[in-house]
């Protein structure tokens, strides 16, 4: 028997409610106890409201929404039950949800400031990476000679870990902010470059021929043919680059930062405040989901010519 979407959504809702009831009714394990569970309850309430709103606003995507929220609900429930109530794993590194979500209540100002400052260096570094890596990648992929020489060198240089760049970035760049941005840039650069090069490589040679008979100047060839044709692959590289930039944040924000998503995690990691580390991870996830939503919209629009029906 297969459940309908409605059933599934109902189950997800019930599990969320059950989690809330469990949180209120059953006392936390002593090692996981916090002053107040209200933050966690609020989060669950918000999840339920958000869930309902999504179902209502995007009835076409009800299936995916129900699936996702079912997963979230199960995770929340198990987390609260196994860790919050039973404390099955070391309570120190595996804090329960009540402890984690309480952090948002306490640190929200700092977190908000962190999101803003991280997004700043993130967006600057990422955009510079896109703007440089895409044309370079397309050009390398297109010019066989350049490909033969530059690509092996690029591949040899690419696996240098960002920590190695750190001292050089500090010495050579004027400000600490510039150094951080540079690290984001370098982390995002390679995936976009590789995506662009592969994109050019997998273009149907018949399309290339179609373009060649127009004897386009090189710049037009790159802009109007290689770029759109390589677009799917570029997007794949850009997505990985986005993931990379978030990962690099922790390294980039080691330099003279006092706020930021990566800093927050790194900082509290150092003090073994695992509830805050996990709260920071959740915060990153929320930011990532928002950024990805934007990313997906841009991608869907740019690739609207692909896979129609």
């Amino acid at each position, binding site marked *: 028997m297969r459940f309908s979407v409605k059933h599934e959504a109902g189950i997800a809702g019930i599990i969320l409610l059950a989690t809330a009831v469990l949180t209120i009714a059953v006392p936390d394990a002593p090692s996981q106890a916090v002053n107040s569970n209200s933050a966690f309850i609020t989060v669950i309430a918000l999840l339920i409201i958000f869930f309902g709103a999504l179902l209502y606003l995007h009835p076409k995507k009800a299936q995916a929404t129900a699936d996702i929220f079912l997963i979230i609900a199960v995770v929340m429930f198990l987390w609260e039950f196994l860790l919050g109530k039973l404390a099955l794993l070391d309570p120190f590194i595996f804090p329960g949800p009540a402890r984690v979500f309480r952090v948002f209540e306490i640190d929200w100002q700092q977190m908000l400031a962190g999101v803003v400052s991280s997004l700043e260096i993130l967006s600057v570094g990422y955009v510079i990476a896109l703007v440089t890596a895409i044309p370079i990648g397309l050009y390398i992929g297109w010019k066989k000679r350049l490909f033969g020489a530059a690509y092996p060198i690029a591949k040899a240089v690419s696996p240098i870990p960002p920590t190695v760049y750190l001292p050089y970035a500090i010495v050579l760049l004027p400000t600490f902010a510039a150094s951080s941005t540079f690290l984001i840039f370098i982390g995002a650069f390679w995936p976009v470059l590789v995506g662009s090069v592969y994109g050019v490589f997998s273009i*149907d040679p*018949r*399309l290339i*021929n*179609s*373009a*060649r*008979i*127009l*004897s*386009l100047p090189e710049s*037009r060839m790159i802009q*109007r*043919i290689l770029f*759109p*044709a390589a*677009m799917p692959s570029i997007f794949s590289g850009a997505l990985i680059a986005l993931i990379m930039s978030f990962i690099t944040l922790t390294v980039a924000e080691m330099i003279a930062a006092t706020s930021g998503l990566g800093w927050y995690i790194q900082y509290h990691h150092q003090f073994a405040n695992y509830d805050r580390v996990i709260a920071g991870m959740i915060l990153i996830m929320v930011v990532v989901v928002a950024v990805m939503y934007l990313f997906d919209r841009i991608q869907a629009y740019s690739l*609207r*010519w*692909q*896979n*129609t*029906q």
Partner: protein
Amino acid sequence: MATIDLQNISMIYGVNGTRHVALESVNLKIRDGEFVSLLGPSGCGKSTLIDIVAGLKTPEHGTVLIDDEPVTGPGPDRGVVFQDYSLFPWMTAFENICFAIEHTNGNLTRKEIEERTEAYLDLVGLRAYRNSYPNTLSGGMRQRVSIVRMFSMNPKVFLMDEPFGALDSLNRIYMQDTLLHLWSGGEEHKTVLFVTHDVDEALQLSDRIAVMTPSPGRIKEVIDVPFPRPRCRKTLSASTEYSTLKSHLLSVLYCEMLNEIERQEKGLKGLA
């Protein structure tokens, strides 16, 4: 003004170490403003030859001269309709044509380009599909866009590889007429190299017909088509001269292929 001179063209494809001779010593001179058809069995190297004249492939031996200049690469003087009519999938029908005009007729304003594009879309009855992406067009529609894209480049040489294969008969006749009109209508005659499988089409359109042998492709015979222009489809196909020429053409075309087909037929029995 354009003459095409194929001098001793050979083409060898090397795939995974094996060498496959696709064309062998092809010689053909096409005069300025002439309409020449290429006829030959599947796989004899017609598309390869078109690619070589277009400058997209470099022959193993031999040279192609356009107006006595050797071809070193593609150029806007030669327009191509590919056998698989590759349109750019990220451009709408309209944009595909616009793009071609833009890059081959340098000195037009945006507005002129768009007007011409509209005119070309009208020409093939696809105005309603101007904003459709190629993926959403039917096979015949894509082929028609691809043909007018080539026309819109306004090249001196038309290289056309089975351009009307996916068209219904009426559209096919109409496109043939359009082709003839554009070929002879302007200030200067275009030079046309036209690949087809349809013997009637070749006879209706061409000044001369080059018949090729199965692989390795060679030019077996070049046949003059002496009918005066403009030609009338109906009267022409009824004439005895036409029938004689057609059966001659068919016998040249088939003489080597029949053996091949006979061999294949054995396969059919083997299958049962």
